């Protein structure tokens, strides 16, 4: 298949009402209700947050993990626009869509997790913001990045609405926003890791290191490819389309390369700081550490060979493994291996979980609606699947 020529993006079409969208709709409605309760009665009324675990499911899952899963746009933009691998171009829009929803909803999640959310504009206002704070830099970069992504994605809307003149003008400037869209995620994804540093000894030594920026940046890039693998396979399976193996195959190889470098850095850092021994203690935290790294090692077993990478099932599972690994890296650092002192217990409450589920349901629903109605995925003949349940 020619690499430079590819099918233009087109709406998938089809009905917006099906079991998936209805379930998502219900979950979103539940989430909205709970958020209303939270706004009226406070965080204590809806969450199990306490003085020992002040950052719980909403911050760690919705914000940190959500923004990590939204790295697809960044990773693919890196490949396409910096490494000039034009053959991946069809991946850009869907990856960007995933990123767009991921970050926008992470931003929304922050807003209702903030205890004094009506002051949130302080973070971007001179006279209030503190340039030494890692959180300020993360928040500012994410905010700018959300704007940049909507601009990057606007051609999709402009095309659908037939605004070709505007589309042409925008295209001339797009390169600058693309560059911003690479630098900004590099900055804040690395700093998401740096956020752990000020917590000092409260974070287990297996996850507390000054090398955070590099580790988190690499994991973000890897996560981006993992998400693209996952999302491509799921979209193909759901819409009964062919998986773009020709693109995913080599992209997965790039992912493996970067992943190897990531594991090298991770373990070299542990050994240099002399804390690797802690991973061999019979504790739940050590177990979590190995599960996290097993998720990063699994793809090497699943898709090392070109043959294996032609199998979309293996690509899908590798993507899932990478996502789980990235999730666990963040979940471990910020929640599981975070210990402010003995005696504290935390597990998300049912309303907390329902809101988190609602956020992901909103992403799924948004993805479905946009891909079905707007030109995001490449135009493709529907591929007839062999009959099976």
């Amino acid at each position: 298949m020619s690499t430079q020529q590819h099918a233009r993006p087109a709406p998938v079409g089809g009905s917006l009402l099906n079991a998936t969208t209805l379930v998502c709709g219900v979950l979103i409605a539940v989430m909205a209700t709970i958020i209303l309760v939270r706004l009226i009665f406070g965080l204590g009324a809806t969450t199990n947050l306490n003085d020992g675990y002040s950052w719980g499911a909403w911050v760690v899952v919705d914000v940190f993990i959500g923004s990590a899963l939204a790295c697809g746009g960044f990773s693919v933009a890196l490949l396409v626009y910096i490494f000039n691998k034009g053959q991946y171009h069809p991946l850009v829009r869907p990856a960007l869509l995933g990123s767009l929803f991921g970050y926008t909803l992470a931003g929304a999640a922050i807003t209702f997790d903030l205890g004094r959310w009506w002051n949130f504009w302080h973070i971007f206002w001179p006279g209030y913001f503190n340039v030494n704070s890692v959180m300020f830099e993360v928040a500012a970069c994410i905010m700018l990045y959300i704007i940049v992504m909507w601009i990057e994605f606007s051609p999709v809307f402009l095309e659908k609405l037939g605004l070709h003149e505007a589309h042409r003008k925008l295209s001339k400037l797009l390169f600058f926003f693309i560059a911003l869209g690479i630098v900004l995620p590099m900055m804040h994804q690395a700093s998401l890791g740096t956020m752990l540093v000020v917590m000092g000894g409260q974070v287990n030594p297996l996850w507390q290191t000054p090398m955070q920026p590099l580790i988190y940046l690499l994991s973000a890039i890897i996560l981006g490819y993992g998400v693209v693998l996952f999302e491509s396979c799921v979209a193909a399976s759901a819409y009964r389309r062919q998986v773009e193996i020709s693109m995913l195959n080599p992209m997965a190889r790039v992912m493996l390369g970067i992943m190897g470098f990531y594991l090298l850095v991770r373990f070299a850092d542990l050994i240099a700081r002399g804390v690797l021994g802690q991973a061999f203690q019979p504790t739940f935290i050590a177990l979590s550490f190995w599960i996290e790294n097993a998720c990063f090692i699994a793809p090497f077993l699943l898709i090392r060979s070109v043959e294996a990478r032609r199998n979309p099932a293996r690509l899908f599972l590798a993507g899932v493994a990478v996502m789980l690994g990235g999730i666990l890296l963040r979940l471990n650092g910020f929640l599981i291996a975070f210990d402010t002192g003995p005696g504290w217990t935390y597990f998300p409450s049912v309303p907390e979980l329902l809101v988190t589920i609602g956020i992901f349901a909103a992403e799924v629903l948004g993805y479905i609606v946009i891909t079905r109605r707007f030109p995001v995925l490449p135009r493709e003949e529907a591929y007839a699947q062999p009959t099976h349940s």
Partner: protein
Amino acid sequence: MRTEKPAPSSGENTRRKFLKGCLSAAGTAVASGTLSTLSTPAAARDTYQRPPEALGLLYDATLCIGCKACVAACKQANDNPPEFSTADKLWDTPLDTSGNTFNIIKMYRHGTMTTKDAEINGYAFMKTSCMHCADPSCVSACPVTAMTKDPVTGVVAYDPDACVGCRYCVVACPFGIPKYQYDSPTGEIGKCELCRHRVADGHYSACAEVCPTGATLHGRTRDLLSEAKRRLALSAGSITRYPRGSIDGGPEQSYEGYVGHYQQHVYGETEYGGTQVLKLSAVAFEKVGMPNLPPKSSAATSETIQHTLYGGLLMPFAVLGAMTYVAKRNVHHEEDDEGAQAAAKKAGKEGS
């Protein structure tokens, strides 16, 4: 008819090499920036020390009798509501500091609990409240400057009007002091501010004012440190004079009492660069909830990384410049191709 992609020319090859170089340079920049935080003195941010006129408290656990007058006084001085932890909600019985309890006395228990200040089979008291660090993690962490350190008195203050309630200060503090009021939809962070709101009326910290035994003593930290060291040098069982209330001036309230068996360490002298609230104890500090902290603060490490990577926005702009150049070349290239494609298509249509 489809036009095939032309075979890579030598020009493209050099471009690819250049691009690869760009990205590896960017990656190396991040890596070296991170590594340099460990070695480059120029970019490193040293741990702050206490200002010379820093105010604070000296808490001597051997003098504390657990009367909790300081807990009651703090609640009153700050208009805080009582906290209940028993079935009959009659008494203010907080289990820990919280958004509504800025000071608390906890008790160490061991075995039969017969002897005060004995580590084995004894009991001891420990006051828990803000340590007013020299290099506060909360001040470094706060994205909206709601936590500030006074440059003269060194008191770490909180401004609820600036606060967004992100609770980064809560997770950053090594002592677990700032706490959020989860029970309110307009909750604030709550912590001891050394009664700075009472200074105008000529008062100082309420806990020190009320303490009957002078276990909590107010004053300039450098004076309190001298007093602490004086006590550590005394032999256990001897008699000495203990000041009460404030160490510098005020009505004479000192009294004579017996010297206890101290741990030979003033807690807060060097931890994270030092704290303005110092503690003396007969029981080992880790057992009474005071963490073991190195002299280098976590705020120093965190800010060093940030300044190295983003100081003056030099590196970000440099990388942005490189990315802009590369992106412009590639996006431009793509459009040309697309234009050529369209033209070829047109030609093909006309041709057939």
